[in-house]
């Protein structure tokens, strides 16, 4: 009897592995930056001639850095969620316009609404590389001390905001 149960058991284990494998997202790469200070940069702001932005400007606040681009398809899906978040004023949202033209970015914001306190321009993608950006949109949660606490790859959803992002922001603000 065990002679037949053996392969069956093996098969079940294999199916188990494959099933778990199916539910994993191969594009999700754990960021080594979590728990580390946000990389420093200083770049010009979108649509604000002469103004620059550096993460140090946000010191003392818990804030979100959202990587976006006008060419990014998934951003289209995410944007209404961000607009709602911006309107609620729950947390300051800073944009990082990644590898994009200023004109295209301004047009995008005019068309879809601007949820951002400001958008920093990363035209050649250098800031993106420092943040380990590989799939736009990405969102970083950064605490009062400028430490990256979490990273979300892919579009934020209302559910993700409600269950993960905002509770984390609250927790960080309380500490």
């Amino acid at each position, binding site marked *: 009897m065990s002679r037949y149960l053996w392969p069956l058991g093996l098969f079940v284990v294999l199916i188990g592995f494959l099933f778990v494998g199916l539910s994993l997202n191969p594009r999700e790469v754990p960021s*080594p930056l979590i728990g580390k200070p946000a990389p420093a940069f200083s770049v010009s702001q979108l649509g604000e001639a002469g103004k620059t932005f550096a993460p140090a400007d946000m010191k003392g606040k818990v804030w979100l850095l959202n990587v976006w681009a006008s060419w990014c398809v998934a951003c289209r899906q995410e944007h209404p969620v961000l607009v709602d978040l911006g309107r609620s004023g729950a947390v300051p949202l800073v944009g990082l316009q990644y590898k994009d033209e200023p004109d295209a970015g301004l047009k995008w914001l005019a068309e879809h609404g601007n949820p951002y306190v400001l958008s920093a321009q990363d035209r050649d993608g250098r800031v*993106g590389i*420092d943040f380990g950006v590989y*799939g736009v949109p990405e969102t970083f949660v950064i605490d009062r001390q400028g430490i990256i606490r979490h990273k979300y790859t892919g579009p934020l959803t209302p559910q993700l905001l409600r269950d993960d992002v905002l509770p984390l922001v609250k927790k960080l603000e309380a500490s």
Partner: protein
Amino acid sequence: MRRFAVVLALSALSVSGVHADEAKTLADDPVVEERVQKLGEELRCLVCQNQNIADSHADLAMDLKKQLREQVSSGRSDREILDYMVERYGDFVLYRPPLKTTTALLWAGPFALLLIAVIALARRLRRRTVQAATANTLNAEEHERARALLAGEENKA
């Protein structure tokens, strides 16, 4: 359809631009380019599954190759450059990740499977020898018949 044609034209344009850029840097210094190529083969392209940076023409891979070129030209060592990439993208970017507690299963897994397979095979073989030693003995009648068969007497009978 027209939109598709425009996209196609645009992508063709951007690809040719990329090639021109690459050709230019290639000509700059073959020694640098060779190191960039070698480093690129060690690094996983994050946006295209199962391809290394050297082989990929994805936007991010091109940017990272640009980074590699700059860093190689500025005289940083291979170790320093790989560390730079790992700091940003994690061990996942390396095709040969370091042996750590988090990667132990990755390294030891195949050997563990091999060990299990060898043990299973050994057990099976042993069981077979025992079976052969006990079950495959013939009684006198069978012996007689076997002898007859071998001698070719069965056909006549």
